[in-house]
């Protein structure tokens, strides 16, 4: 039962990551692969604020979101001038820079040792110490993120995002400042990812740079790629499948040392098969909604 709750919490955290990443890669079509960097920034900022300033977890999380959004400018602004093909590698570079900063700024982040002893979240006197209560908290944030992204999807902002993805010149000719919209997209993606960062910091009470590597970003890419680029429910489905299935593997007689590798193999295969045979993913972007407009 405890284990089931654990899986659900992890699925929730990754749903937030996948759905927010979908805003960048699915809605506005910027092919950056650095979600784990924003995830990590959110985690570290909220953890450090909690431990050093003793604030409540909500303002700490909010500051984490702000920090991630601001730092996303450093990859968002150069991105405006970069050719599509270079964007992926550029985002890899950004991801690695964040990882190395987390590892090397030992004075602030305690480097490879990580930060331990992060307290459980507290709200109006109630502490979310039990796994079940933490699951409820996670679900609340998942719903929040889903609502935000769905609203973006259906709003004029979402339409401009999709327009930029399809034909940027046309959108520019309509007088829209595409630069601003791209920056906003990055900020939304990074800010929402930071929510997951804060959640994982509280849940495991320990964070270290090794949780926020390029492999993690690739995993999130796999989730969105599998589930469906451009569709919120697709991203959700991708997260559920790619977190759920490897966990089920634990019930099979496979040595635990192999599980990491097998998980990786599943992710790789899922990505390859999807890209080769069904690029739109499991749940494709709905054409119907666009035609209605």
């Amino acid at each position: 039962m405890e284990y089931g709750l654990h899986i659900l919490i992890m699925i929730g955290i990754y749903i937030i990551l996948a759905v927010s990443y979908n805003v960048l890669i699915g809605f506005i079509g910027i092919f950056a692969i650095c979600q784990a960097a924003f995830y990590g920034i959110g985690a570290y900022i909220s953890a450090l604020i909690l431990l050093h300033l003793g604030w409540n977890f909500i303002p700490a999380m909010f500051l984490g979101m702000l920090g991630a959004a601001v730092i996303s400018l450093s990859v968002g602004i150069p991105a405006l001038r970069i050719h599509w093909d270079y964007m992926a590698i550029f985002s890899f570079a950004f991801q690695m820079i964040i990882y190395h900063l987390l590892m090397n700024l030992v004075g602030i982040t305690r480097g490879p040792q990580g930060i331990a002893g992060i307290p459980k979240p507290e709200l109006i006197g109630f502490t979310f110490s039990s796994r079940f209560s933490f699951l409820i908290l996670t679900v609340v944030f998942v719903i929040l993120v889903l609502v935000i992204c769905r609203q973006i999807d259906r709003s004029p902002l979402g339409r401009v995002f999709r327009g930029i993805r399809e034909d940027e010149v046309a959108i520019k000719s309509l007088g829209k400042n595409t630069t601003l919209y791209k920056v906003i997209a990055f900020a939304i993606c990074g800010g929402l990812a930071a929510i997951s960062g804060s959640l994982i910091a509280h849940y495991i009470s320990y964070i270290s740079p090794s949780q926020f590597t390029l492999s993690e970003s690739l995993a999130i890419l796999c989730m969105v790629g599998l589930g469906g680029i451009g569709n919120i429910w697709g991203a959700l489905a991708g997260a559920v499948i790619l977190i759920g299935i490897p966990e089920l593997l634990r019930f099979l007689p496979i040595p635990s040392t192999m599980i990491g590798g097998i998980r990786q193999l599943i992710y790789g295969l899922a990505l390859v098969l999807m890209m080769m045979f069904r690029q739109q993913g499991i749940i494709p972007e709905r054409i119907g909604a666009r035609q209605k407009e």
Partner: protein
Amino acid sequence: MDTFLDLLVGALYLSASYLLVTLGFAFIFYIGRVLDICFAGIYVWTGYAVWFIAINLGIALWIAIIAAIVLSGLLAWLTQIAVVWPMRNRGASSFVILVCTLGVMIGMEAIPSIIWGGEPRLARETSRIFTMGWITVPDIKIIAIVLALLVFFSVRYFLARTRTGMAMQAVGSNAEMARVVGIDIKKTCILAAVLGCVIGSVGAVIVSVDTGISPMTGFEAILIAFVCAILGGFGSFSGAAIGALIIGMVRVMSGWALSTLWQEFLVFFILFSLIAFRPRGIFGKKVWKAEV
């Protein structure tokens, strides 16, 4: 004086192994014009093949090396005809191909991880040391430097003087015109990819013999290749070599002047800054051309 020579040899060695990986990547990317990350997966498999054949099967090292390099060529050909070209023929965007080959790399790197775990595997138990005058250096470093120079000048000759090489430059610079003139694009690109993976795999062999191969080595190698290629200028093979030389020097000097921790950071910071401020690099032209 000792330290200086040590650092110099170290830098040249690093540059040499970077050169091999960068040239390999250059062949795949400058000519095929598609970011093919399968290269990283093939790199890892080659390194593991050397280790497996030499250590697990106990066969002589040089046979293992040759077998591994042949394997890499085969894998390159396989991934090209099974993954890359079917997608190109269907008109897949370069992003989809990139992501697909990323998936191939993830899967390929997973397999040695499952079978042998994540620790680095060394393909040779002991290394022979040369002592030349003031410095003592493992033989692999000298071999690597010599090999890299050989490969570089062979590549220059191949591209500039042979028909196939010139065809490759043509395909990389302007595929449409190349087709008009009668060059078989698919064959040329596949050959370029095979050549690229083989050259890059020599780098994998060196790593496997010297520091040991682990599942993540492939992706690290391709990131380094990218930094060197961008620094030297996309499209220029000689630029790639110069980029590799500079990055090797930078890495060693920063490791000595700052701490080893910041080495990696510096390399990625250079990559980041280059793409942001001068994607053209040193020798890149404003219009893309694949050239010697």
